[in-house]
């Protein structure tokens, strides 16, 4: 009689194990069915631009809602990799009331760091018309970095600039349109015309 009970216990345990395996298996199956296929296989990061805008006019507002500057151009292409924009033939106008209006243009541009840096490449021109408090200003260079939020332009390339009638060239520029301080960093040449007012 004794071995009947032990064989019965053995058979019961085997059956119990089988049921447990079955339930776990079905849980696993449900899991697999729910999981979407993308999460399983990591898709490669997108390097190609994902959208572009033709003949655009982008206006950035200041905190008080007044327009601060606008960028127009032939084409604006967005690069998802670093969330930057490539612009063809950009034209930038500073619109803030307290600084003399300045216009910048170049062949191509790259806007990065969520619009806090605008790099301008190729035939860069900056022009500021004379106002009662500031002199006329024109600038030509091959590269210019504009920080539109603080109205600063910088360059490490050769720069030719005219201030009223004086013509100045040098390498390396820092110009702050808000404080209207201007610096040239290397081999500076200046040509200042004779002051026209004579007694």
């Amino acid at each position, binding site marked *: 009689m004794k071995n009947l009970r032990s064989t019965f216990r053995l058979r019961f345990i085997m059956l119990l194990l089988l049921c447990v395996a079955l339930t776990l298996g079905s849980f696993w199956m449900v899991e697999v069915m729910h999981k979407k296929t993308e999460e399983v296989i990591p898709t490669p990061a997108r390097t190609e631009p994902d959208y572009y805008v033709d003949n655009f006019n982008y206006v950035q507002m200041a905190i008080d809602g007044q327009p601060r500057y606008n960028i127009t151009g032939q084409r604006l292409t967005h690069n998802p990799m670093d969330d930057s924009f490539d612009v063809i033939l950009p034209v930038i106008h500073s619109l803030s009331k307290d600084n003399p209006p300045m216009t910048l243009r170049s062949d191509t541009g790259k806007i990065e760091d969520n619009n806090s840096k605008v790099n301008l490449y190729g035939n860069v021109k900056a022009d500021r018309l004379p106002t009662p408090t500031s002199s006329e200003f024109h600038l030509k260079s091959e590269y210019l970095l504009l920080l539109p939020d603080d109205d600063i332009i910088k360059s490490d390339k050769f720069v030719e600039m005219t201030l009223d009638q004086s013509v100045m060239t040098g390498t390396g520029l820092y110009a702050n349109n808000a404080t209207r301080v201007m610096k040239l*960093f290397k*081999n*500076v040449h200046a040509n200042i015309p004779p002051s026209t007012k004579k007694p």
Partner: protein
Amino acid sequence: EKADSEKPTNIEADQFTMDDVKQVKTFTGNVIMTRGSMKMTGAKVVVTTDPAGYQFAVLYAAPGDFAKFSQKRDSDPNVASPPNLWIDGQAADRIEYDDKTEIAKLYKDAQMRRLELPKGATMADVKPQDIKVTDKVNGQFILYDSRAEFYSVNNTVDGVSKPGAGRITAVLQPKPKQP
């Protein structure tokens, strides 16, 4: 010479800073400033433009060096072949030049010399031994009015002569008798 004031000013330097609000332009780093025949060299030049448009330049000497300037003098129009007259000056501290009054002020160990150069030579291309010094003046402060070609010398830096503050030396060559 008088024609200089109608000529543009050319400045070469290492760095340039400008404050458009105060209309102050600063050139630093072995500065060479030329205007017509006038040439000024120094470590730093600060050019301020007054509202009327006149420029006021201050030329600072590098430590241990001199701020120098040289300019051609107007020759006597009725002399047949006028001598090639020049004037040059140097100062240990600074040279101030006022465009409106065309007066130059030289501060500290100042020296002015009247020179005669061979015909057609300029200060840039003349050989030192060809320079003939006709007058030489030293003092702590020299004021030179380039329009009237008159200069006054004082023995203190603030332009007022005080007794016991040092000697002024002047060497005036006799005028050569016209042959």
